[in-house]
């Protein structure tokens, strides 16, 4: 069986995993919203920049982004801690996907909503932020939460640059105790405890949306 010390180490590691996920949700979400807005903007240059950003990020394995953020940036003189480098990579990674998901949601808002807002003399910026964005984000909620589950699972890749999150710590413990079945079962349960509420929430939101769009 696992010792109390090992159990504690795993729980601490789970906190790092949750922290990394949270950073990806919040900062990745903020950058992602910016990317989504650029992606649907009337300005061709902004649209092009956002498009290129999404293409590059989606075309690069997260594992490689982790390595780049840690080893690559340190060659350029930015010495990030493993956790900072992993956070950086996670934010870039999640922002591109959030941006693409939300772009779809924004474009799915009917044109008549723009017109109704325009006819009430709302400024273009007000139309966008008060009328279009809330509806676009709401339409995108199920895929957004689905992607959040992916984020939690993909934080495991931070183990390759030595972040003491769940996957890294479990390997470490396994190396000294050789109880892979027990250790990785516990780890799987911990991941499940973080992902399941999100999946459940996503399903609930989807049901609610289906009711609203009867």
């Amino acid at each position, binding site marked *: 069986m696992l010792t109390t010390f090992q159990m504690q180490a795993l729980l601490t590691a789970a906190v790092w995993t949750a922290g990394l996920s949270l950073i990806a949700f919040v900062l990745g979400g903020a950058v992602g919203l910016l990317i989504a807005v650029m992606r649907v903007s009337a300005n061709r240059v902004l649209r092009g920049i956002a498009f290129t950003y999404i293409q590059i990020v989606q075309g690069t394995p997260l594992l490689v982004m982790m390595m780049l953020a840690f080893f690559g940036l340190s060659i350029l003189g930015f010495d990030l801690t493993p956790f900072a480098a992993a956070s950086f990579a996670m934010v870039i990674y999640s922002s591109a996907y959030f941006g693409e998901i939300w772009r779809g949601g924004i474009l799915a808002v009917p044109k008549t909503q723009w*017109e109704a807002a325009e006819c009430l003399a709302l400024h273009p910026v007000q139309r966008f932020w*008060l009328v279009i964005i809330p509806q676009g984000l709401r339409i995108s909620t199920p895929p957004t939460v689905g992607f959040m589950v992916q984020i939690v699972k993909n934080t495991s890749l931070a183990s390759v640059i030595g972040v003491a999150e769940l996957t890294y710590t479990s390997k470490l413990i396994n190396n000294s105790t050789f109880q892979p079945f027990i250790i990785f079962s516990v780890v799987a349960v911990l991941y499940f405890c973080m992902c399941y509420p999100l999946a459940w929430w996503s399903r609930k939101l989807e049901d609610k949306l289906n009711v609203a769009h009867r």
Partner: protein
Amino acid sequence: MSPIVKLNNVSKSFGSLHVLQGVSFDVAAGSVVAIIGRSGSGKSTALRCINGLEKINSGEITVCNHHLHHDVTRAQLRALHLDVGIVFQSYNLFPHLTVGQNIMLAPRWVRKQSKSEAHEHAAEVLRKVGLAEKFDAYPEQLSGGQQQRVAIARSLAMEPKLMLFDEVTSALDPELTGEVLKVMESLARDGMTMVLVTHEMAFAKGVADKIVFMHQGRVWEEGGGEMLSAPQTPELRQFVGNGL
């Protein structure tokens, strides 16, 4: 009275499709003008041009002292929208906001009303359309007729000088059209200047001061309610005949 809306030889095409071909008519302040005509005759387009939602190709439109040419600017359009309200066939309420929030949105952000001021005002226009108790409901919880009345209230809250209605009862079940028409009738009685596209001939005849019959992108006939009983053109005769 001087006209509040004046269309002078207005033309509008979508590509090679000439939808409006030299349309002219006036709307006197405080009057109700009904635009009738077959589907595809350009009624909605005329209304959308009055509200600047479509840019005209030639001619001139004057609405509440705003002059719309083919090269109208965004700022001019916004100034126009402060004076003109429009209600669409499909209501177009904001589904993520409650009835009250729908109505208060523009007064708060555009007219810069305080929260309590906007709230009071919203309650008042809701009462006018008979939906005072629906302030906190979401649009999806209302019937079509109720949603359309909220859309009217939302427009009214901006205190427009002119209201446009584009077939506002066409999407409703027959038993729900009455409640919406009643609201429009009371607005007309209160002296609101209104231009409405409608298929409700009895309503047009009873409420409108002037009826404009459009056909193939032109004003084919215009006159008072009596025009429907004594059509001058075969086209209107046929339209009235089919419509009844």
